[in-house]
């Protein structure tokens, strides 16, 4: 048996056995909902560059190079 495979197979059990610890990226609402239910959560503020505007994001990429 591959010990790594064992470990992977074991993860769902340990996830369910302990309280969740969450890193939330992007939409803060998800983090707020979890936090309001007592979950341990760290929120990482992130959004697509230039709010997803492809033209501005392209300009930014060229202005960074």
């Amino acid at each position, binding site marked *: 048996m591959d010990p790594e495979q064992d470990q992977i197979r074991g993860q769902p059990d340990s996830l369910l056995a302990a309280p969740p610890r969450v890193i939330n990226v992007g939409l803060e609402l998800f983090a707020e909902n979890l936090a309001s239910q007592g979950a341990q959560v760290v929120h990482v503020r992130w*959004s697509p*560059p*230039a*709010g997803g*505007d492809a033209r*501005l*994001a392209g*300009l*930014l990429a*060229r*202005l*960074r190079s």
Partner: protein
Amino acid sequence: MQSIDQANHEAQRRIIDGEPILVDVVPASHAIPALGDNVILHAGPPIGWERMCGPLRGAVTGIAVFEGWAGDLDAAAAKAAAGAFAFHPNHHFGAVGPMTGMTTKSQPLLVVENRTFGNRAYCAINEGLGKVMRFGGNDAEVLDRLRWIRDVLGPALGRALRDCGGISLKPLIARGLTMGDEMHQRNVACSSLLLRQLAPALARTAKSNAELVACLDFIGRNDQFFLNVAMAMGKALADPARNIEGSSVVTAMSRNGTDFGIRVSGTGDRWFTALVEMPVGLYFPGFSARDANPDMGDSAIVETIGLGGFAMAAAPAVVGYVGAGRASEAAAFTRSMAEIVVGPNPAWTIPAMDFAGVPTGIDIRLVVETGLVPTINTGIAHREPGVGQVGAGVVKAPLKCFEEALVAFAETMGLE
């Protein structure tokens, strides 16, 4: 050719390396010779009478009566509508003004000299709180106060500053940041520190005991007296950062109650504008958001150099005053602004953030990339002419200015 990052570090270095000294108070026509009859400088990017908001119109009519260009407010409004006045932004003449930002020929102006780069910048004297012209007030009480400032306080301050050889502002700001000021909506510490230095010189040069008492009393009762000094200083520090080829650093942010405008170093003196937003804040008793005018004033020059909303962590008390949340959230504003600047200013530090320097040198690339726009602490004017201040709050710079500036900046870099 230097890279954009190199150009931006140079812009930020110039802002940080400036040595601002409050050197004098002089009549505006001496400081700005272009200020003849019927010439009115205002806050914000260019605007004509037809698009001016209520408080700006109120201030224009009031200042026209003050200067003797019209017999009363109605006559002044008629002259303005007929095109009798030439309107220009303060920023086009090395000046700034809070809220409506009226600058005309006979008003006394604070003079701040940047000894590192040899440039000067100007701002009118703060009128105090309540019904004042910077918030659109224009009745007899407002005009009488302006006459006293012109005839008594301005000349007295000029004599005192010349007597003491000027007041160095950089160390004063550094100390103010450790005493709870952010230099936009809270200037209690810096106003007191300034008065402490000015008082002996005022006493030595006063023409009478009564004049001295009146001047000390006026300054001592005004927690925001230092704001206009900070603004002239901000302009004096930001101007040397203009016109650096390849720099995407903001050199001015300003609003006229209708439009918000920014200037960027690498695109010269072109304005990028968008409709200005409404402040979110707290209102004085009897007033509400229904009474408020959209944001206005050249005072965002203090955020341009890393103070005001950018230094919120230094001033937890101001968070409550402007209705921006709990005192413990003050640091979050400063941390957020640190994400859109070139770097900290090591000369101006914030004790509550382990003496981190205030975030300085707004990079339009970072603003557009992150969607984080500058946070500005501000006063709120009534939307009707002649009423005055009704509250204080926080306003966000519109993202559209920065997006348009980015496109224009890219063109200067040979892109697009």
